[in-house]
């Protein structure tokens, strides 16, 4: 079965979203996600790479699943899905690619 490559396309900061710093109710200032643009992982057998964020993983697992089983969505290149994690204070955009055997 195909492996899937996950790459970080874009890391948005809280300032990008709100136009100013985001301060939590307890006074802490929200930092951008620790992921770095260009960072890559390979998922084998639909498994989460070690240490990868569980929250983001759950957000786009449906897309990985679709690629893994040979599905292709319209309007993007074959074998590719662009997706985003749901942390709206600091969303991260990912590119998912099916690596053909």
């Amino acid at each position, binding site marked *: *079965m195909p492996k899937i490559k996950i790459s970080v396309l874009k890391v948005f900061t809280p300032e990008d979203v709100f136009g100013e710093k985001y301060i939590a109710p307890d006074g802490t200032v929200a930092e951008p996600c620790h992921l770095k643009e260009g960072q890559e992982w390979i998922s084998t057998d639909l498994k989460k790479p070690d240490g990868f964020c569980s929250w983001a993983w759950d957000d786009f*697992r*449906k897309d990985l699943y*679709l690629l893994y*089983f*040979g*599905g*292709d*969505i319209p309007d993007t290149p074959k074998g590719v899905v662009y997706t985003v994690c749901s942390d709206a204070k600091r969303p991260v955009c990912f590119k998912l690619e099916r690596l053909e055997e």
Partner: protein
Amino acid sequence: MPKIKITVVKRFKPEDVFGDEGYTTPNGKKITECTAFKDGQEFIVEKLDKPEGFCGWAWRDIYKDVAVLNFGGNFKNWAKDGTQFTACTDGVRPVCFKLERIDE
């Protein structure tokens, strides 16, 4: 876009999961098999929209499989091409579904 047919294959009773005592909620309500569906009931999915009256929780659970079939994927070596078997995640009274792609 293809249509997807959903068929209710089997509804389990709490007794199937927990044994003869079945399941009673903390406030004393005895739970039966799922009442949102009937065995053998069929639904048609068009344009990936939830069929009218289909349970929202179950739809969330099966949506990823419906999407794979909708976009031409197949569950190789698991179920026949164009089909999939999946279950809703209600652990007290699960419901099993068959999904089938209806090619135009």
